[in-house]
């Protein structure tokens, strides 16, 4: 543990929070341009969050204490999880505290709380959202853990920083399993972030909504926290995919300020590229019916299982 690892940890924690609205705004702007609209500025999410923070809180009459602490827990756990994914350096003080399984579980805590909050008021929309969210989670979580399993088999570790070290040392090379895992993780990321085709982040008053249905009753600063958590989660998945599959540029421990600078610049480029990909993907694809989620995410699960098996085959050959 050095002073620098603490410093970089603080920097990383702040970046993944402060840059998250920009990424979400960026995706929205590109989507708007792709369909021929002018669209809001990429900075609009910041303004939205600030506006929400200044508003009074309107609580439903029968909201319980759980409803009021849930936004803080959701935000705190999501933020923490994002802070644990190496983005520009692996020299972070908190890195050994959590591996990929723990990251998945941290997002699970946020999901658990948001589903309960959806049920708290006792409206049919809240229940609908919570029920669908749990269906998606029950399919996405195993798929994600299977991807972790494949990575653990390939690299011998479940810690993201070690995976980066291994990939950067040229230990993986071009592997079919790595490709399958990437596809599986992308599908999971789309589902977990409530993006099209699973859910539509822009929808309201529509029977297909999932995430928005659970947070219908939230207002003011609570809503701001929940929206911010969703933005941080998108940032987290983008960082995770880029740090595992395109780790080049990340500063490993022992490199100086120059390495950090390269890390920061390359991280920005990676996030921008992936966000642009997401916007294009969302524009060209249509929303899916609820009961076809199982095919979509079951596909992700089977892909990641296949990745493990392909690994054995390539080992045997």
């Amino acid at each position, binding site marked *: 543990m050095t002073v620098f690892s603490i410093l970089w940890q603080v920097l990383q924690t702040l970046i993944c929070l402060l840059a998250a609205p920009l990424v979400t705004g960026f995706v929205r702007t590109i989507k708007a341009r792709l369909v021929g609209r002018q669209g809001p500025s990429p900075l609009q999410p910041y303004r939205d969050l600030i506006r929400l923070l200044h*508003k009074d809180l309107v609580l439903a009459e029968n909201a319980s204490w759980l409803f009021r602490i849930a936004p803080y827990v959701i935000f705190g756990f999501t933020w923490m999880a994002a802070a644990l994914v190496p983005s520009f350096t692996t020299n972070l003080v908190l890195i050994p505290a959590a591996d990929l399984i723990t990251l998945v579980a941290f997002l699970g805590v946020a999901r658990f709380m948001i589903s309960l909050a959806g049920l708290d008021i006792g409206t049919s929309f809240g229940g609908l959202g919570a029920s669908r969210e749990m269906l998606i989670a029950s399919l996405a979580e195993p798929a994600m853990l299977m991807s972790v399993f494949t990575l653990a088999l390939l690299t011998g570790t*479940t810690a993201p920083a070690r995976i980066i070290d291994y990939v950067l040392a040229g230990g993986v090379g071009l592997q079919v399993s790595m490709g399958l895992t990437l596809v599986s993780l992308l599908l999971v990321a789309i589902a977990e972030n409530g993006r099209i085709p699973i859910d539509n982040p822009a929808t309201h008053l529509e029977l297909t909504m999932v995430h928005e249905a659970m947070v219908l009753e939230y207002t003011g600063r609570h809503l701001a926290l929940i929206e911010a958590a969703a933005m941080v989660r998108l940032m987290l998945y983008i960082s995770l995919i880029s740090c595992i599959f395109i780790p080049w540029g990340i500063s490993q421990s022992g490199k100086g300020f120059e390495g950090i600078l390269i890390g920061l610049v390359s991280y920005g480029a990676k996030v921008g590229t992936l966000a642009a990909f997401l916007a294009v993907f969302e524009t060209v694809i249509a929303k899916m019916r609820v009961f076809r989620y199982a095919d979509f995410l079951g596909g992700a699960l089977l892909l990641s299982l296949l990745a493990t098996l392909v690994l054995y085959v390539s080992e045997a050959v």
Partner: protein
Amino acid sequence: MTAQALLAVAVLPFLTMLAMVLHRRENTPSLVHAACFAVSCILGLIGALAVLKGGADHVQLPVGLPWLKAHFRIDGFSGFFLVIINLGAAAASLFGMTYVRHLKHPARVAVAYPMFLAGMNMALMSDDAFSFLVSWEFMSASSWLMVLADHEEEENRKAAFTYLIMALFGTFCLLGAFGILAQAGGGYDFTSMRAAKLDGLQSSLVVLLGLLGAGSKAGLVPLHAWLPLAHPAAPSHVSALMSGVMTKVALYALARLLFDFGPTPAWWWGAIIMVLGGITAVVGILYALMQTDLKRLLAYSTVENVGVVLIGLGVALAFKGEGKTSYAALALAASLYHMLNHSVMKSLLFLGAGAVLASTGERNIEKLGGLIHRMPVTAAAFLVGAAAISALPPLNGFVSEWLILQSLFLGPKIPNWAMKFGSPVVAALLALSAALAAATFVRAFGMVFLGRARSVAAETAHEVSLSMRAVLVFLAGLCALLGIVPVTVTSQLSGVAQNLIKAQLSETIVQGWPWLAPISETRGSYSGTVLVASVVILILGTVAVIKGFGTRNIRRGPAWDCGHKEASPNFQYSASSFAQPLRRVYGATLFSAKEEVDMPMPNETRPALLTLRLIDPVWQGIYQPLANGVANLANRLNRLQTMTVRRHLLMMFLTLLLMLIVAALRRVVP
């Protein structure tokens, strides 16, 4: 130490006698439970001492079979289970002190309760097959009596009947396993069994019989059918003991057999147990997801957790068979940890369900709701238990499932294809069961405690007595503690596991407080302590920023709900509607779930009807044909009852002849 423990256990039969003699007095049941609490505390402390000290303490009593005597022994392993059992027992007894006042027949429970505790404790201390089986049967019979405590209800009588049959089946299997071991080892005490030399077939038979015997008690699928019937039928604090604690005695027996005095089976037994565990976990939690009875839901979730423990035991066995002992020790320690965790969380959840039952008289989650407003302490404790059992960090359930996953990730290190392909599949099953557990407990907590009250009973509920709340809070605190400082527990556990698998584990599982790194520093590590501290800092920082930023005004208004106004609480999502998407995805094949909607035409006045049919494949496929077969056979054999004396004599003669032939054959063909 063993002598003191036996002395403490000896108090329990006197409590039963006391309960019988004074059964008319109103406060006897509470008194008996209080005394049981004291005894459990003492026994738990003795267990903890045994874990800390290590080593074994043997005592021989001049009772039992004349040529065998009764052997008792406490070592680190049984000490650890004494802690698990008596932790649960102490909590249940303290809870029971006031809970029995809500029961219809408290005196019946008070009679059987001390014997139940005595049976479980003796089973852990036994060091010979005879005392073990006698204690085991005491445990079964006394819990059976408590399942029957409310025997006026038809359902409970049926549950007790099924339980009795399965308990007998389990003991029968264990008897067979002990018989084979005793014949090879030359004695019924475990010390001689340890020295037994078995060939491949014999050792496989011992493992199979042990798995069936202990598995039927623990709830291994497909032997689980009695468990969700019997556990909820007993009074809630006894349900907590049966589900949280008695299943651990069964798993203790299995682990003892597999890792201590039994044969060392081939690695593929490990693979079989691992796969069975994975199937048990997923099937158990899928059943739980479909239940509307809160206590039955919890019982099915026990089936899931037994599956998780079996995964760990199976992996440990496979590693042991392959000679990778340090990995085996890791997997064993992980499953031991999960047993401890499950007993704490399941006791908490069952006692929480008991509190709900005591205050509303309702077990059906479709008729509850909104209890968080009227029972805030119970709700908070239940929430902690629900999160812990859903394997959410930083609580205890997560740590043990994380360790089990980590040991599964090592599975492909065994150089054979069954483990290589099996461990990823089982890991997927484990992940699936954890995700489904979260769905189950979101549903359970949400329907019981959140939303609006769905019945008058839920609307007029009130918080339970102080001692009951104290137990719930204590167990919830324990869930948090076991999760936040896991290294303290694992360092003790590694000692326990080390005794069974002669391998050094301490250097691999503990990388210095507070980092939990099971294999090596680079393979992945976890620190609950650091994470909790960081999350707390982040959340407090957020609160501080928000406080300085916006307004603090709060207005209360009616729920917005997209502009709908839902007048009746029946508009809410119900437990069945919550489960519907999951039922369609998972239940269609497994339970052949069928939904039929009968929607009246616009001019009709009859209500719309949704019929839901779930078919339990285990009952349909195994139990029903078996029961029919037995009934058929019994009908045929009925004829033998009404024979003449002459024919009876003929039968006896034929039997004698048959036995003589067998004896002669044995002499000719050795």
